[in-house]
């Protein structure tokens, strides 16, 4: 999956990819103060594409808000919502709106699920539907944080650690391997990283084609940008 950290104050963005074995579960957001946890499990292509690169994508997210007693299990197949002991199943083929005391859901048929958890976080999960006979790809999901300003300063995770911004400097712009993608040196978290200017896609407005967002790409699974190593974010279960 590709990760994008948008920094509107600097009119810039950072991005990195994490590719590990299909089936790995990563922690994306963890806020012990508010009791929020978002984990995602990856899935791989059906077989190795001609370029030999095995890509992984998220196909299932587990979201828990302990304080509010809300638990969501969102996969490419279906959506389970558990609140106060009651369980509701939604299908991606539905269009639905659920308004509860602690959680609001807006499901757009075959496209997106917008989730608002009271006084904490708002996010949208996009469904990327792939033709079932596609030789390589399968259906997968995207996770976009829309509002995170109410989360505590201790929020962490692959995405969560960036919710309160990040300090970095970029210098020494130079030609890269590809003329369209110059390299540069980034000073971040006390380290010097070789980064490459590129772009990744935001699919919120156009789920099919996406829109390019220019960003500084951090190589080697985000090493240097992330606190610790990407393997530190691997967890054993979805919840």
């Amino acid at each position, binding site marked *: 999956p590709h990760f994008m950290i948008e920094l509107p104050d600097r009119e810039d963005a950072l991005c990195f990819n994490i590719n590990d074995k299909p089936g790995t579960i990563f922690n994306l957001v963890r806020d012990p103060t508010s009791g929020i946890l978002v984990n995602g499990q990856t899935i791989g292509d059906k077989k190795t594409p001609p370029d030999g690169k095995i890509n992984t*994508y998220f196909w299932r997210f587990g979201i828990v808000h302990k304080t509010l007693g809300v638990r969501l299990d969102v996969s490419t197949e279906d959506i389970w919502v558990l609140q106060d002991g009651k369980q509701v199943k939604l299908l991606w083929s539905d269009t639905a709106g659920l308004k509860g005391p602690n959680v609001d859901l807006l499901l757009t048929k075959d496209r997106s699920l917008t989730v608002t958890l009271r006084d904490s976080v708002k996010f949208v999960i996009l469904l990327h539907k792939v033709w079932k006979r596609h030789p390589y790809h399968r259906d997968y999901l995207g996770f976009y944080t829309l509002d995170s300003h109410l989360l505590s300063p201790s929020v962490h995770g692959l995405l969560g650690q960036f919710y309160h911004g990040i300090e970095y400097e970029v210098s020494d712009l130079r030609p890269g391997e590809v003329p369209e993608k*110059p390299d540069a040196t980034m000073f971040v978290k006390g380290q010097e990283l070789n980064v490459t200017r590129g772009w990744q896609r935001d699919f*919120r407005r156009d789920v099919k084609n996406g829109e390019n967002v220019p960003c500084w790409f951090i190589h080697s699974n985000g090493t240097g940008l992330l606190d610790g190593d990407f393997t530190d974010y691997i967890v054993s279960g979805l919840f």
Partner: protein
Amino acid sequence: ARSLQKRSTNELTVEVYSVTVDCTVTSRFAHTVMTSKALNRANRSQEIFFEVELPKTAFITNFSMEIDGEVYVGEVKEKEKAKKQYEKAVSSGQTAGLVKASGRKMEKFSVSVNIAAKSNVTFVLTYEELLQRKLGQYEILTRVKPKQPVQEFKIVTNIYEPQGIAFVNTHANFLTNELLPLVEKTVTDKKAHISFSPTLEQQRKCQGCDETIIEGDFIIKYDVNRAQGLGDIHIVNGYFVHFFAPPDLPRVPKNVVFVIDRSGSMSGHKMHQTREALQAILKDLHEEDHFALVAFDNSIEVWRESLTKATKENLSEASRYVSNIHSRGSTNINDAMMRGVRMLIEDREEKKLPERSIDMILLLTDGNPDGGKASLPVIQKNVRTATGGNMTVFCLGFGNDVDYPFLDVMSRENKGLARRIFEGSDATVQLQGFYEEVSSPLLLEVDLRYPDNAVDFLTTNHFNQLFNGSEIVVAGRLTDNDLDNFLVEVYGQGFEEDFNVQGQASAVDWDVIYPGEEYIFGDFTERLWAYLTIQQLLDKSKTGATDEKANATAKALDMALLYSFVTPLTSMVVTKPKTEDGTESPLIADKLTEEQRQLAERMSHRYVPTRAHYPVMNYLPPTHFVDGD
């Protein structure tokens, strides 16, 4: 006197170091990416131009500029809304139109951008089109005009046709004997690869000079193998496309009335070319065809009172009549058309014409009606009422002064089509070419039927005629994404008997046909469907009741925005980087209508669409996200 040597003003301070044209055709749907990379060698900033030509049947789908790592991407917007939003820029003249008419088949896309000293710029233009089968072949036309020899120059085309490729021919008007061997062509059963990539030295006009011989059209023509019966159906990613053009069908005899404008404005060259073309067309008539000649100015004159069988004797008499048509008077299109329609109706009633035959009127005119009934809507209505949907009207509009939209609507309302004939020495050939395209109907009232519960969003599936050398294309979406087979039926009226075939269409396994390459096909079929739907909606937006027109326009607009096609209803807005004084000038790519192209030609290439816009970016709130790419 001292001889002063003038310093060269043509010093090359801009180096275009890469020009590539990459075209992929899958099931007739062509996706072309033109990329140009340049370097400003100068010690000062300067304007760099990107000018390319694309077929007028194509829709631009993307344009981007990358300047020193910063990418400026085009965004497709509703033309009318954008116009209002950019009014400020319009009034201050800060923008420039990007698309101009260029010749008969092409449109020119041009943009310029100010580049800092020693900086690079990369322009990427993408366009898409559904190739039309005409006279038994498809044509991919690429026009190239690099201003200087280029380090990396490449035209690469890959054609994927699961039906199998019957032939591929390549030619270019700049190919010398030395360059000819550089065109590499590999054709296997279902794939063709054509590439042309001369070195810097091979591009030079002369040794050591900076002029290039690469200038002109690079044309690839090909056809696919045709299956008997149902035709070919490709199902990919939940969308299907059905190509129908069975081989070996007998042609249906036709009854054609030639309605010939001999008004004063046709005098000279045009009249001469019309006579020549008619002589040639007469020679092409088959003996089982019937024909009539109606010449008109402000008065109407018929060669014979009713249609005549195309025997040798009759044709040679007709030829003598044609050679004596001379220009005079004004233009009474209404009464001439009424006369032609009446002849067909009367002859039908009197059973002078074969029962299974097609009735058509071919109007050839160069101007606006100014005699008899001059109101255009009235003439259109009269013709529509008179034909009663029982005959086809084809119109040939000669030259730049013809009222093309009038002819276009009149033809469409009567199952036919209009074509502009461009003034030039080859007008005779153009006239003949058009006639050839439409003169051999193979089937009438062709219906392509699919199960209602399995498909939706079908493009037009009823066609008045199938012409020899052409092809019927229908596309749609499968409502059941899991469907691998569905029943298809084709019905049409043939010459001696009806054509009726039923069969099961199944998804081909692209993985098997193109092992290792199927990755590229992605959403080709869906985009083909979208392209075809938009084209048909744009056509519908010109004819029919007012609310139907509005409905078709609205739908076409929605789809053009959704699929990012630059159509006559949408514009592509690109924000140029700020100049040193801090001003920002947006650029617009529009799609010309036939009327605008005609206007452009009337203005002798002085025409620039001057619609100017400020860019509007609907920013989404910034986010941290994770997704697939």
